[in-house]
């Protein structure tokens, strides 16, 4: 009878028994709520289907509310109904219409909000449909009772999972501003927690919102209440909010203990068996520890690295088991794995890629997220603290990170490379363990990765490992060849990292290594890099040349000859008038290297334009430039490897530019002690007399 009445309603037949229909709907609703058995019974009878149709027809709001309550009940504990609900593409839009048309009916708002929340959480309602609708515009008006605020907060917390979603939510600022207003009210725990949870998800990127929150007088009381809350989930929630706010707003000194307090909570949660909570903790830690040495130390001392590595090992062994099972299944089916496929399976989708891909927004599995955040946290903790890098190696925990460099998921490979960048800041003994475990060959492989970020981070890792291990790097595979290739890539960051790595390769190694590098790199490419469009690359290229020429007069001459004297001078001349002080400084230091060469080379750099510019740079506003210019003077006037007569000539040239007066002025007026000391030393060079020269003069 109920279903017949609903059908009549849809076919717009006159309804004489709407009151009876309402009673019958209520009875059905009362029977199915909390009773799975009755739900199945009514489901097979078609009640859900009829209710879905009834909410599309314009009938009494009471009947619609009852139908919505029935639909809401079917969302809970009824798998069979889920498919039907998902297939109903108009479900959300029907609810939206009822919500908009009945803003004055509290029961309608209540049931609509509940059904939207439950629908989103159970993936029955599409998140995109919700975000693209106008629902968010209506929310501020609906936030007039605690329970509605709670429901809306839950909806927002669920939606704010990606940057894109958060942007959409933030477009409706009024909803968020209302939430920040309500945290000051004396609300129930459930409502307050829901608001804080929503804010913790939404504040990930918005400094304006964080400032708004920090401006609330009672906010620190609320923080204090929740950081010691008995519920671990509540503590995690507030930790997220604190970490987000801390990114944009400096906490007052008296409240900074709050941030320290949450670290033990987060480290403890890393031991939790619930992977969702572990992921949250690792994600918050990686944000909080970024560039904060203090917090890194606290987390490291609490054993965060050990806990994370334990989790990573467990996750990796689970994945191996799954892969083993699927491989056995494939073998049973008789599929033929050729060598390349086996290699690719081991290393992920690595192929020769001249145009590497950028990461897509693809969603990682919970296990993969845990690995990524775990690696990011290890990277943060080991970035500034050598003791934790040592400990990592001593406990053999570096092996799991090396293993993860070969993970099939590119974002994990990228995070593992960044971890290597951090660990690679260690001293030689510690780095040796990495080489022993084959990190170089794996990084070599990653230089050819399909994804740009992986290539960039692998190159960064090589940059750090290269110092002290130039020979090992050059002997591994074709790292050098690949680095040189990458100096020609169109991707600026990758090009920069490649040049940086090569610069480190030629930092104080043997001459043989310098020659090997030069043989691959060539002066031509290096000079092109000195003229790169990107100033930071120019700087690294100049540093590379400087390292190559250091203490090698024959190399200096070779460089000058290859470039052509005039062209070389012109190149350096241009750099000296650049706006980038860092670049100017490096150009001067390159001149210093040349000036420390033989007489021919000293004469080469005493070019009129160069000298004029160097003297002018003694008055540069940046002290690093002034110091570099003074170093040039000292190198060019250095007594030990100079011909006395030529030295005097050079002094005379500088005296014409009143260099001594300028140096005296620097000593008198500068507050920089290093600058003063250098200027004094340079004056000493001027005043030093050559015994043999004066003897010959006297003669």
């Amino acid at each position: 009878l109920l279903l017949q009445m609903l059908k009549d309603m849809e076919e717009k037949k006159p309804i004489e028994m709407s009151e009876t229909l309402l009673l019958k709907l209520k009875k059905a609703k009362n029977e199915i709520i909390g009773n799975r058995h009755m739900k199945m019974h009514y489901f097979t009878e078609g009640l859900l289907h009829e209710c879905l149709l009834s909410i599309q027809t314009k009938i009494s709001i009471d009947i619609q509310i009852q139908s919505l309550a029935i639909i809401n009940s079917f969302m809970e504990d009824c798998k069979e109904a889920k498919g039907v609900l998902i297939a109903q593409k108009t479900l959300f839009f029907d609810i939206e219409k009822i919500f908009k048309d009945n803003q004055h009916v509290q029961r309608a708002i209540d049931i609509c909000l509940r059904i939207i929340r439950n629908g989103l959480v159970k993936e029955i309602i599409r998140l995109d449909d919700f975000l693209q609708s106008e629902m968010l515009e209506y929310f501020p008006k609906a936030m007039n009772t605690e329970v509605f605020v709670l429901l809306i907060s839950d909806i927002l917390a669920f939606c704010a999972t990606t940057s894109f979603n958060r942007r959409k939510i933030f477009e409706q600022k009024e909803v968020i501003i209302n939430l920040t207003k309500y945290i000051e009210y004396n609300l129930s725990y459930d409502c307050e927690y829901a608001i804080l949870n929503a804010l913790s998800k939404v504040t990930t990127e918005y400094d304006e919102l964080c400032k708004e929150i920090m401006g609330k007088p009672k906010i620190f009381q609320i923080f204090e209440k929740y950081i010691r809350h008995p519920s671990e989930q509540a503590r995690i929630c507030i930790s997220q909010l604190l970490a987000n706010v801390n990114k944009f707003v400096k906490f007052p000194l008296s409240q900074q203990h709050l941030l320290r307090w949450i670290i033990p909570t987060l480290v403890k949660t890393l031991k939790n068996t619930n992977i969702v909570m572990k992921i949250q903790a690792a994600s918050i830690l990686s944000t909080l520890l970024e560039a904060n040495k203090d917090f890194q130390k606290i987390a490291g001392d609490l054993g965060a690295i050990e806990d994370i590595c334990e989790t990573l090992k467990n996750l990796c062994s689970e994945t191996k088991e799954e892969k083993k099972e699927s491989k056995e299944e494939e073998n049973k089916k008789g599929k033929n794995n050729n060598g390349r496929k086996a290699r690719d399976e081991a290393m992920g989708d690595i192929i020769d890629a001249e145009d590497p891909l950028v990461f897509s927004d693809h969603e990682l599995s919970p296990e993969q997220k845990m690995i990524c955040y775990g690696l990011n946290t290890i990277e943060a903790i080991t970035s500034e603290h050598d003791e934790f890098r040592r400990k990592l190696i001593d406990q053999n925990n570096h092996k799991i990170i090396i293993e993860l460099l070969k993970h099939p998921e590119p974002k994990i490979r990228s995070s593992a490379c960044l971890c290597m960048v951090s660990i690679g800041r260690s001293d030689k003994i510690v780095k040796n363990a990495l080489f022993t475990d084959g990190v170089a060959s794996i990084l070599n492989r990653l230089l050819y990765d399909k994804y740009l970020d992986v290539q960039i981070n692998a190159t960064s890792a090589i940059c750090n490992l290269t110092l002290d291990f130039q020979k090992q790097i050059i002997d591994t595979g074709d790292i050098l060849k690949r680095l040189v290739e990458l100096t020609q890539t169109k991707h600026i960051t990758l090009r920069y990292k490649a040049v940086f790595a090569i610069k480190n390769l030629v930092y104080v190694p043997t001459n043989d290594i310098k020659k090997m590098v030069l043989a691959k790199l060539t002066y031509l490419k290096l000079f092109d890099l000195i003229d790169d469009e990107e100033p930071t690359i120019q700087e690294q290229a100049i540093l590379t040349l400087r390292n190559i020429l250091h203490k090698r007069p024959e190399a200096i001459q070779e460089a000058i000859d290859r470039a052509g004297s005039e062209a070389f001078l012109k190149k350096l001349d241009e750099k000296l008038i650049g706006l980038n002080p860092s670049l100017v400084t490096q150009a001067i230091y390159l001149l210093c290297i040349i000036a420390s060469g033989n007489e021919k080379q000293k004469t080469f750099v005493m070019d009129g334009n160069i000298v004029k510019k160097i003297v002018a740079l003694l008055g540069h506003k940046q002290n690093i430039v002034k110091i570099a210019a003074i170093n040039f003077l000292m190198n060019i006037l250095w007594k030990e490897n100079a011909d006395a007569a030529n030295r005097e000539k050079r002094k005379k040239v500088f005296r014409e530019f009143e260099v001594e007066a300028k140096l005296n002025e620097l000593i008198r007026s500068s507050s920089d002690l290093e600058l003063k000391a250098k200027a004094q030393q340079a004056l000493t060079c001027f005043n030093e007399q050559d015994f043999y020269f004066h003897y010959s003069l006297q003669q």
Partner: protein
Amino acid sequence: IKVSKTDMNKLILNYLYLEGYKDAAKHFEKESGMACEAGENYAVSERKEIRELIQKDMIDAAIDKLNDLCPEILEKNLSLNFKLQKQKLISLIKLKKTEEAIEFAQNKLAPLAETNKSFLVDIEKVMSLLAFDNPQESKNSDLLEYSLRHSLASEVNEAILQAFCQTYEKKLLLLTKMMLFSQKKALSFHAPQISDVSTGKYTYEQYMRRNLS
């Protein structure tokens, strides 16, 4: 130690409103000249109605009102849902509607026990009442008592307040708990102990014993 009349009145008003005794609370407000605090009287009319219906053993009507107020309370609180259904079964047995009671137990109540085995034990206890012509003679006759309905009504009342983010913990109850806790701690000082909270009777045996010694 002075306790102000205003504080006492507030505690009583808080108790009356949170328990859903709307009429009593309104009268008390009038006589004491006090007003309730924000949230205390939330949905008090509905809560009063539902309480009365449960206490009168009109469970279907109570469930209907409850689901109208908030359909998720019974959906999420399976234990409360079961207790209401169990009370309905008891009322059918009291009205000697044996066949209806058996059918109800089989079709509506037993499926609820799929989620919680302890519910089966409760169902068996209630069904044992059917074995007696006069259920009062059963050893489970306490199931027929008014106090069960009263405590069920209080539980439903609390669930409603919680579902609507209102405080459901009565301050009077909280204070009583604190008093009993403090009393326990004060045992070591041989302080007088309240032996009966409902009457306020206290003993000072240990206090006397200490003084005599």
